[in-house]
């Protein structure tokens, strides 16, 4: 094994492979920074070039290097202008942007990059350790278990609604309805398309996220007629942000584990990991009143999970040849084209390739975070730009991002509609996160439910995996209530002066 590890490392560190890895990291960071340009579409552009490569290690360096860092640089736009750069950094907006408004952009960015690094380093370690053990586990998971997992995600709507549960539930249901728009695979009929060809393919999550989060914040900025930051300081947050990650090391580890788990389960996708981790932080951390108003723990949870998720994606991809998402499906195609056969051989005769992936994930994360930290100060100054400089640039950024996702003009009409919805929700105190979560999980939940019923009837409810997951779901719902009750009891026991 040590031999394979050293061979993988030496092949990745050849000048050609290292150069291609740096190119991949740079491209991945730029794509992550720009909303609307998805990683998969850029990977698709790169495929014809990669498939002609003779050296499989060079192909791994370029593709895995690109894929590993997509969510790192996206924190810049999420924190500074409330525009999620990638689908994996939507939850970062919730606390990152308020921190920027409070003049703590440096702290938020530094925490997000260090959390990304930690998540990005834990991921490959778990990938390495888990390969021999996870095969039976992943094979035991069927559609019923996936259904309970998505249901678990949907119950997070309650957590994200806070003290307005009715509004949160309604927003979650609306999100599920939006996810239902388009041709239905199960019945073959078109749902909520109203004979419009544009709606047959469904509504893109990028459009909804840009409309719901970015435009309402931009309107707020235009209404305030000030800079993003309400103070004139970047804050002494550079080191503080890094310290925050280690101060909340247990949360960082838990969020990273959630990311790996979500990545490991095929089909859940990057947009789920950050929401799961954020909701988990909100559910389990003490003193939750600052979440959504600029709590650094929200940034840490979201960013640690979206990076560790990338390594989790590679577990089923390499070990079983089952891609965890669209990006890994494309990478799998390229790997096969250059002579790598993902599957059990990756743990035996082709172990050096597996180690090459692990080393690339590790090194590219370090390079990406170093690049981001290098530019943190100049880019953070964006917070002090007057509104008349920033608002038109954000609008250009958002409109181009919306158009670039599907390249149809009707996306701009959809963007305006969702902007109005997001604006009204924000204005009237409706939580916007449940809508996005409902949209992310809605169609998955429905598909898994029907697959389970079609295959097992109602017997799927008695599967051991389903029962264990249901028990964990109930435990996660009850835990915050128990925790609150215990806190109240502790408070009641304290003498009044200490309360």
């Amino acid at each position: 094994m040590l031999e394979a590890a050293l061979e993988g490392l030496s092949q990745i560190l050849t000048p050609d492979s290292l150069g291609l890895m740096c190119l991949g990291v740079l491209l991945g960071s730029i794509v992550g920074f720009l909303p609307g340009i998805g990683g998969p579409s850029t990977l698709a552009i790169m495929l014809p070039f990669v498939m002609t490569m003779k050296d499989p290690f060079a192909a791994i360096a370029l593709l895995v290097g690109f894929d590993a860092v997509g969510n790192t640089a996206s924190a810049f736009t999420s924190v500074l202008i409330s525009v999620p750069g990638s689908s994996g950094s939507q939850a970062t907006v919730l606390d990152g942007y308020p921190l920027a408004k409070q003049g703590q952009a440096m702290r938020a960015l530094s925490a997000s990059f260090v959390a990304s690094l930690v998540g990005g380093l834990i991921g490959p370690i778990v990938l390495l350790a888990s390969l021999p053990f996870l095969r039976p586990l992943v094979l035991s998971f069927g559609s019923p278990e996936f259904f309970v997992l998505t249901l678990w995600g949907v119950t997070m709507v309650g957590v994200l609604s806070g003290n307005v549960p009715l509004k949160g539930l309604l927003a979650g249901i609306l999100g599920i309805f939006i996810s239902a728009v388009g041709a239905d695979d199960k019945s073959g009929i078109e749902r909520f398309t109203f004979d419009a060809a544009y709606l047959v393919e469904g509504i893109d999550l990028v459009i909804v996220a840009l409309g719901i989060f970015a435009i309402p914040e931009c309107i707020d900025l235009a209404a305030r007629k000030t800079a993003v930051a309400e103070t004139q300081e970047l804050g002494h947050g550079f080191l503080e942000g890094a310290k925050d990650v280690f101060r909340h090391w247990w949360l960082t580890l838990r969020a990273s584990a959630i990311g790996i788990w979500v990545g490991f389960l095929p089909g859940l996708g990057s947009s789920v990991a950050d929401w799961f981790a954020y909701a988990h932080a909100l559910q389990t951390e003490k003193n939750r009143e600052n979440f959504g108003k600029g709590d650094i723990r929200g940034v840490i949870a979201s960013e640690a999970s979206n990076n560790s998720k990338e390594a989790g994606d590679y577990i089923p991809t390499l070990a079983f040849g089952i891609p965890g998402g669209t990006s890994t499906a494309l990478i799998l195609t390229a790997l096969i084209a250059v002579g790598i056969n993902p599957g059990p051989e990756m743990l035996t005769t082709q172990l050096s390739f597996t180690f090459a992936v692990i080393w690339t994930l590790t090194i590219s994360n370090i390079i990406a975070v170093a690049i981001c930290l290098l530019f943190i100060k100049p880019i953070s100054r964006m917070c002090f730009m007057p509104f008349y400089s920033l608002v038109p640039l954000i609008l250009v950024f958002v409109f181009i991002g919306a158009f670039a996702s599907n390249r149809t003009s009707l996306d701009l009409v959809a963007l305006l509609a969702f902007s109005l919805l997001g604006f009204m929700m924000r204005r009237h105190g409706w939580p916007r996160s449940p809508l996005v979560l409902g949209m992310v999980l809605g169609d998955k939940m429905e598909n898994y439910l029907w697959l389970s019923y079609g295959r097992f009837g109602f017997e799927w409810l008695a599967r051991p995996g389903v029962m264990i997951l249901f028990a964990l779901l109930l435990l996660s719902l009850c835990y915050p209530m128990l925790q609150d009750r215990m806190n109240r009891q502790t408070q009641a026991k304290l003498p009044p002066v200490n309360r």
Partner: protein
Amino acid sequence: MKTRLKLEGFLFTLFIGAVMAGALWVARPWPIRASIGILVLGSLGVLLAVWQLVLELRRKNGALERSPLESPVAEAENKWGNVEIWSWIVGFYLLIVLIGFMITVPIFVLAYSKFYGARWALSIMLSAIAWGFVYGVFEKILHVPWPTPLLQSLF
């Protein structure tokens, strides 16, 4: 102002309730596999919307309950409120439809920044940056096929 906000909030909840009811109505004739989820959730949604409407009616002026994850909204100080920024947004979209992305982007950035008091040099620089970004990344590198502007297809 507070009464108007309360009325607006009521109408918005009414709109969400109408969407839920509309979804139920549209989903009725669908096969059970396609409709069951919509029917169950839609019915629940209508009930919740009615409950929320009752809460909105009973709410005192100015006592808006807000999700802790949503920060308070800044009220526009001019007499037009947020209509002003919405006009800019819709205007930007209409210009894109009429004359296309590549021409609209520098014009919009220049007009907006200059209107709110930026110096000419800054406005021109911002327009050039925005145009350069769109041209360089989307036109030259990604070869994005822009939609044909309406004016071009008319003449």
